[in-house]
């Protein structure tokens, strides 16, 4: 049971990392915008826990998958913008492929059942 929980936690955490990388794929965004974008794109099906967002962003930054710089937001306040690095882009491609493979497999199982 414990192991299953840990695995699901890992799965969720890895999924969150993937979603974050995907959110900043085309342009740099600050943390709040990343959370909003994920929620919006998933039609509010996925709500990013704000408490989990920042540790995740910083971990990705330490791993060199995200870069960051400070800029001005639409509300003219200083905000930290995250962008995808080359390593992050490679990682995103890998995650995307893995996700597609997994989703298709799950879908096939679900359809036949």
């Amino acid at each position, binding site marked *: 049971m414990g192991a299953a929980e840990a695995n699901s936690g890992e799965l969720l955490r890895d999924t969150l990392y993937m979603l974050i990388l995907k959110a900043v794929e085309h342009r740099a965004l*600050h943390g709040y915008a990343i959370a909003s974008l994920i929620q919006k794109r998933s039609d509010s099906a996925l709500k990013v826990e704000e408490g989990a967002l*920042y540790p995740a962003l910083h971990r990705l*930054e*330490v791993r*060199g998958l995200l870069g960051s710089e400070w800029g001005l937001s639409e*509300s003219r*306040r200083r905000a930290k913008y995250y962008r995808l690095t080359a390593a992050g882009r490679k990682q995103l491609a890998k995650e995307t492929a893995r996700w597609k493979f997994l989703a298709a497999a799950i879908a096939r199982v679900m359809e036949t059942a």
Partner: protein
Amino acid sequence: MREAFRILRARMKAFWRRRELDRDLEEEIAFHLSEKQRELEEAGALAEAAELAARRRFGNASLVKEQTREAWIFRSVENTLRDGRYAVRVLRKAPAFTAIAVLTLAFGLGANTAIFSVVKSVLLDRLPYKEPGRLYKIQEVAQDGPKQFPLTCVNAGNFLLWTRQAGPAADLALLMPSTHYLNLKDETVEITGARVSANLFQILGIQPWIGHSFSPDEDVMGKAGSVILTNALWKRLFQSYPGIVGQTIRMNGSPKVVDGVLPESFYFPKQNELYGSNIAGWTHPIEYFVNLALQPGEMRPGLQMLNFAAIGRLRPGISANLATEQLSVAEAQVPTEGLSGVKMHVALHPLKTAIVGGAERKLWMVMAGAALVLLLVCVNLAGLLIAKGAGRAHEIGVRAALGAGRMDILRQFLIEALMLSAAGGTLGMAAAYWGLRVLVRAAPVQIPRLSSIAIDERVLFFSAAITVTSAVLFSLVPALWLSRRSSAGTVKASGPNTTPNRAISRIHHALAAMEIAFCTVLLVSAILLAQSLVRVMRANAWGNVSHVLTLSFFTPHTHYQEPGRRAQLITKVIESARNSPGVEAAGITTALPFQGQAWGNDVDFKEDPKTAKDRPNANWRFVSPDYFRAAGIGLVSGRFLTGFDYGRPMVLISQRLAKELPHVVRPVGAHLYWMPPGSKTPVWCEVIGVTADVRAQPEEAEDGQHQRDEEVPHPVHRPHRGVAAERIDVVESQHGRCGHAEGPDDEHAGQLEADRRPRHAVPDAPGRDERDGRQDVHGGGQRRQGEGHRRLVEAVDDLEHAATGRRQREHAVDEDEQPAGTRHPAGGRPPSGRRRCGLRAG
């Protein structure tokens, strides 16, 4: 892999930017909250409600910050640093505990490292020669023969018998300590070394650093034409002159060609360390080697002239027993000079044992003491740490209640123990380093191989490992117990005055018992040692030595061949010393009491003849009449010598030797035989007096093994004239106090310091080694002498002047024969820094 490297780099960068990162994170989260609040306000919420809702949605901001921060830090490093800071606070709050623990550790570690370094360098390290296990010292043994045999070494004639008849077993080298004057351009210095057979270096497996070894044609029967210098002498007196090899230098006024200079690492035992006992005047380091060049008188085999040391290297495949047998076959042919029932054979002792043997037991005793102290230190530390730990139940309870896990608490204790160990260890290393330096410079006891002593890293590591392990182990005992209690949530019970549980008490009691046991052992040893010390001090007491000054000078045979010339100088020295102000009495002797063995011979009384093996062993000292009064040696019966006794066969014997005579024979008036060197006819000497007992050499009690009385040679005193002794000691006794009470005035202080340097010499006049009587008893040490001593030095200086003025030119340095390195500009400092004495322009 790349990612791991990126993480490491990012965290290392972040380590130095922690405050900046904290501020950024703060701002980032504030921005997030304000954006959320704005969104809610746009949806119609009131500002206050929107702010509250935004905060609620975000959750515990502090926790988020903490979790985010973890991405940037090395958790273990951060924790350790935090624990370290906390440990420093804890230790600073208990300065007495910290000081005691650190000093205890430093003491245990320092003492052990220093002493074990000595033990290792002296006893455990191999001698720095090629295959040192095959090197042996060879000694002659006369079974059922005269008693001086265990104390002496080898007769050169007997040695020649071995080399002729027992060749295949071992290669043999012969040597004998020597003293020479080295004539330099500006000064003449006395140097100490050895006469050695040409194959010595080949046997030791040592090649000179520059130049070459002695050639075989310079062997035993060769000419005394070459010298090999030690690196230290070459540096000191020849300023490392590279062209020294092949140059001619003058020693005792005769030319010698320098064959080579030995490597800096070359080790050779001091002059008397190869002999079984302490020989008077042979306590100096060996600084040069000259050819043995045996004189015809030295080559006569027999039981006399046992003045040489022999070293052998066993041939491969030959055991020590086999070599002993083969050499003993040759030794059996030694003429026993009419002594019946004497069986001659040889004994082989491993060279290292022969050199360090005397010190071995003492050093192991000291090592055992140090080990016991280390144990005591560990136990003491354990007790301290446990007591300290047990008193921290409350603090640990609070920390546990605030969320500290068991591992956190253990880690905290561990770090405290490590910090204590580090501080104690650093202090201990410094103590060991300085302690050893002091020991090597001013060893209170004679330790062979002293120069090769250095701190050994492995020893240091071993001692550090023991102390650190004990510190860690015993700090964890209370930590384990307390953390278990805390994890059970018993904060309430752990008030500030909570007593430790029974298990801890039991450990504490056990430790206290162990400590008492170790202390008792140490205390008993200390008391025994103190008793021995008192005994030794009593046994070695020698009158009122605080009023006695001594000065040693050297009169080489090469310059005192004319009969009466030496006696003439001695008379002048005595007169001059006697006429110095404040001097009560002045005399000379060939060896001072306690200085060691001198002229060893067995004695036999005409009135009570004994067989060779039952004869007492005596040490002959040749003295002037007033010597006894000057040295403070009392008269028991009979009379002292007078000036009229010169040339008459008369002796004074010690009280203990007198006891060897049967009661019916009165010692005064009895006759004992004296065998003049090289003669076969004994001279019967009349005993004119019995003196109080004075020992020839100090009683050695450090090893807890006292010499049996019958093994201690009895001093026998004879008038000095007619005896060819090179080294002579002047003794003078003074009125009132001298020395320390009246320190030298400033004007003379510098000169005295220069005078204190031992073994000055001039070609034709005495070399000197000044001391006061106490130093002879207690084995040297640097003491500044007083006014009385200055007068004695000046008196002998005057004599040197008188003695050298006439013959100085004859022994002036021949400039053409001096290597360039020995030349000094006029008025420049002499190379050795020694005071130039006696060699004044006249």
